[in-house]
């Protein structure tokens, strides 16, 4: 990989803006499926340029939380703020009601998402996968979108694979295309949902390398992961979720060196 992943101008802007504000923030978020409380009062924010890693056993609500933050699932209670403005709802007759899907779609363009199973569009080439957000959502001209998408593929090291279909790419390559597809939209924050969990061990590195570079360049990120190494080395803070709650939120040294919660200790022993 050569050069930067993000645009020079974006990196400068990220470096220049104050990091005191949350880019995205959840306040007292509750979510229930049927009779199951999946999220119980989750509050979490991430500062500009910061990386937050979320750890936790399966079923602890990590993925659901990320989908709620990404405005893909309605929440039952609580608030989500993007750069200080409340999103996902609008005020109607003095009450907040969920936005219709058409308007939610607009707010989602500021949030980049990467999924465990990549979810690339199989009927489109790598290039078209990266272009489709620009042409169909941003309304960009075909030629401009093509050059931006080519650029972005180049930056994640896949310039030579632009004309390949997802089925012709390795898992690691597919996930890098998926990252490019989200990044090309210039999101304010990137949400990663276990981005390396579906990968063969030897392909994990190439995806983590891209994510580390993104973090270095100042991208704001929330990463649900089982990669302890990534959480320790790249994240500014590490969060532990269990049974729909955040039970620990600390800098990596403290989180891994001296966790307060017994459950965190047990979890770390189990995954190590």
């Amino acid at each position, binding site marked *: 990989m050569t050069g930067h992943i993000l645009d020079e101008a974006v990196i400068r802007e990220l470096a220049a803006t104050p990091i005191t504000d949350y880019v995205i923030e959840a306040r007292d978020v509750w979510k229930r499926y049927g009779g199951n409380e999946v999220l119980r009062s989750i509050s979490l924010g991430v500062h500009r340029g910061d990386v937050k890693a979320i750890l936790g056993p399966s079923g602890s609500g990590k993925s659901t939380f990320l989908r709620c933050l990404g405005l893909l699932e309605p929440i039952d209670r609580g608030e989500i703020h993007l750069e200080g403005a409340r999103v996902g709802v609008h005020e109607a007759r003095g009450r907040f009601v969920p936005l219709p899907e058409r308007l939610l*779609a*607009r707010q989602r363009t500021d949030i980049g998402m990467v999924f465990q199973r990549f*979810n690339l*569009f199989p009927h489109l080439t790598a290039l078209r996968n990266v272009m489709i957000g620009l042409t*169909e*959502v941003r309304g960009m001209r075909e030629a401009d979108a093509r050059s931006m998408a080519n650029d972005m593929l180049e930056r994640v090291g896949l310039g030579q694979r632009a004309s390949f*279909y997802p089925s*012709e790419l390795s898992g690691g390559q597919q996930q890098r295309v998926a990252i490019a597809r989200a990044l090309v939209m210039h999101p304010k924050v990137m949400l990663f949902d276990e981005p390396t969990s579906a990968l063969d061990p030897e392909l994990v590195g190439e995806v983590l390398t891209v994510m580390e570079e993104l973090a270095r360049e100042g991208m704001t990120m929330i990463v649900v992961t089982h990669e302890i190494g990534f959480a320790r080395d790249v994240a500014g803070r590490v969060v532990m979720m269990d049974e729909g709650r955040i039970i620990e939120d600390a800098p990596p040294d403290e989180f891994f060196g001296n966790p307060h919660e017994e459950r965190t200790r047990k979890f770390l022993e189990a995954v190590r």
Partner: protein
Amino acid sequence: MDFKPSVFFEALGSNALIQGVQLTVALTVVAFVVGVLIGLVVAVLRDNRLWPVRTLAWTYIWIFRAVPTLVQLVFIWNALPQLIPALRGAWFSPFLAASVALSINEGAYAAEIIRGGLLSIDEGQRIAARALGMPPYKVFSKVVAPQLIRVVIPPTANDFITLLKITSLASFISLRELMTNTQTEIASSFRFAEWYAAAAIYYLVLVSIFMIGQAWLERRYVWTSARRPGAIARLAGR
């Protein structure tokens, strides 16, 4: 054996069969297009949030797949005008009646094919499209539909061929399609073998042309770059 090739070739080139084929093709295309549109709507309604809507869609599929097509056809042609006086006018032609009957019937089959196709598309596809910020109609037209078309091509092609052949049922309501005209000619000539053989040839040709179209369509929905020269070599790692 009493098979006169001259009669057979005369039948092949006869106006009766050529005009019959035109009506057969027209009826098939109309019933197919309308049927698929009905099927699309019914398939989507089958998953509606409201249970009465779901039940209605389910009932539609249940009735029109269970009742024989011939019964539906003669019901619409003979029984409906008795029940609804407005249908007694000359405008309610056999072609219209057959189009309605076969469209409704095709709609029930198409609905099940499309529903199966929709179920086969990974939920992650819709989620990824929504996450990119696509509004609902783009999620469908740009992401779901292309994948849906690919999975429904084979069963829909099968269905189309069946539809083409059951248009011959319209001979029961005296629509002058291929089968009706064949039988009319036989009634005056008594040359069964030659005329039936000629009609069979026409069905064979129609289905064959259609199969070529299907193969072409399926090739368009192969999602690999392998058709391009050099792609396989590149995949192999140089």
